């Protein structure tokens, strides 16, 4: 057990941080829902950062750190699945990689070159043809899309599907961690600057304590996400995803309360993180789905008949 970064890990984290700093601010004129980071994506591709998990000195743990850092940006690109899930697929598949669950709209589906399709307990994969995917208007701050019903999907073998499901959970937890950190920081800024009753909102204990609890939850998600990426254990991944979705449920509500009406506007960036978090709440079966997996993986329960 040693949480100090190796020199290689430290170099990667610094490089990602330097890259991210260019995209730290939301454009003032942006009033939309999903702020697409095409330039960010190009920088990541040019720097070959999508292959971090496959570099032996770095591995999935560093990929998770990168996902977490980049999720703090107001811009969004399909990063988490490319960095953490794509390397686990057998065969050659192209990014962007997206996920469709039970026919519902999924993140980045309209631009995806590979789509994982979850239907009940089964999982398949497809490279969509033109016309098989469509963009969907959404309140979620991701570009959402749909896959045409009836598209032929190649089923994944049970073992591969289980492995992919694990890394989907790690990706979800790492992304949630970054989103939580950015959302908390955004609310802290507001509470520091906004004055009511003659003093900053952040001086009122009722809000200070709620913010502190949000920060503790975000910190827990951070550690469980990194641990899951580091150990690559199924149970750790399920626990990380569970804690991520559980914490996000609570934090998103609290932060919007902190921001008041300002948090309802598209001018303020808070929704860019909170409405991404909301999109992640339902993925992979939501908390109920993680709990069923934890019951089997961590408590030794038998699978339901």
């Amino acid at each position: 057990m040693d949480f100090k970064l190796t020199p290689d890990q430290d170099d990667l984290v610094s490089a990602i941080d330097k890259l991210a700093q260019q995209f730290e601010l939301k454009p003032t004129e942006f009033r939309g829902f999903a702020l697409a980071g095409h330039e960010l994506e190009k920088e990541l591709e040019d720097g070959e950062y999508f292959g971090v998990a496959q570099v032996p000195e770095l591995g999935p743990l560093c990929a998770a750190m990168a996902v977490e850092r980049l999720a703090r940006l107001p811009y969004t690109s399909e990063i988490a699945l490319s960095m953490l899930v794509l390397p686990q697929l057998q065969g050659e598949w192209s990014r962007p990689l997206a996920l469709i669950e039970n026919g519902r709209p999924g993140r980045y589906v309209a631009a995806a070159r590979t789509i994982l399709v979850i239907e009940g307990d089964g999982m398949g994969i497809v490279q969509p043809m033109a016309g098989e995917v469509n963009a969907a208007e959404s309140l979620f701050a991701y570009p959402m899309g749909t896959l045409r019903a009836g598209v032929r999907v190649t089923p994944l073998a049970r073992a591969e599907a289980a492995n992919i499901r694990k890394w989907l959970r790690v990706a979800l937890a790492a992304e949630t961690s970054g989103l939580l950190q950015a959302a908390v920081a955004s609310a802290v800024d507001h509470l520091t600057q906004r004055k009511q009753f003659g003093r900053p909102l952040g001086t009122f204990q009722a809000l200070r304590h709620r913010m502190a609890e949000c920060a503790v939850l975000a910190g827990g998600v951070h550690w469980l996400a990194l641990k899951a990426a580091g150990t690559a254990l199924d149970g750790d991944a399920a626990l990380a995803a569970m804690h991520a979705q559980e914490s996000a449920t609570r934090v998103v509500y609290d932060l919007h309360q902190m921001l008041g009406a300002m948090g309802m506007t598209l001018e303020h960036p808070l929704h860019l993180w909170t409405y991404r978090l909301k999109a992640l709440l339902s993925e992979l079966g939501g908390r109920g789905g993680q709990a069923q997996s934890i019951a089997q993986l961590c408590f030794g329960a038998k699978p339901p008949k």
Partner: protein
Amino acid sequence: MDFTWDLEQQTFRSTVRAFLDAHLPPDWESLAHGPGSATQSHFSKKFCAELARAGLLVPHWPKRWGGRDADPWTAFILAEEMWEAGEPRGGQYMNVNWIGPTLMRFGTEEQQAHYIPPMARGETIWCQGFSEPEAGSDLASLRTRAERQGSSYRINGQKIWTSYAGHADTCFLLARTSPGKGGISIFLVPMDTPGIIVREIPSLIGEGDIHEVFFDNLEVPESTMLGAEGQAWEIARTSLSLERVGIPRFALAGKMLQRAVGILMGAGRFGHGAIEQAARALAACEAARFYSYSIVDQRRHGLATGPEASAARFATVMAERLVGEFVVEQVPEALSGGDAMLLAHHQRAIVAGIASGAAEIQLNLIATELLRLPREPR
């Protein structure tokens, strides 16, 4: 960054587990009630002496004081295993975690020579005289007075909620020597000094855990003072920072959660509602564990632990709460004679958010020092 235990850490954990297997009596689970009780206090002296002889009481202490300079991970693995086993060291865990190290840093040679060797041999129980009827979270307002009279001090006042006082040999006592926060001093007071009266307060926590302690014209020599007059706040802050992630409560909480789930599965009662509640609680335990590990790792690398220690403590409080709620809701029979260890854990968990500084004080610290929110007006 590495999330696996190295061979030395694994071996040490196995050694501690083997020691526990060999030295805990068959009826330990029923003994584990009331860590301050007469039975467990008596047992802890026998157990800690054996632990010391095996080199497992204070491995992280310097060689000079009976340790082997082991790193903070060793100390924490030891603490995890002990707490998970129901803390057979009783109140002596405080000696190991913070009283000994505090004396090593601030004590005189005479104090160190007198007090540290018996701690390292597992022979002595301490209590901490901090809280008072009018000074709980607002510790700086404490009123117990220590008035200098030549080369001695006369102490008058009252402490409350004092754990282990009924069987303690020595009290780590905070008393006021002058007004204000800078006017508090620490005295190391033998509990058999005339003028000390201890009264147990019956509680939910278990037999012999909390007490009132009265100091009536207690006369102690100035050599009992730890550090300089008025240095208590600085010393106590150091001590409390060691204690903030001192008890790995998540370890026993996680073990008891597994036990409760085992009972439910055995009875065919582990349905959807229980599964979700248990999964949520286990995730919280693991979050608290790795939050705490991050603090241990900072210590290991010689870094000062800041407000993250308060965050780790609060994460632990949340985990304890979720496990407690799970047991009460899903295995209520545990609190009515159904399972001695689940009951003992529930009783100990009651104080998770209160002892060693209320959880709300930790939230204040997190808001100010971690989030950098503006301070509350005073």
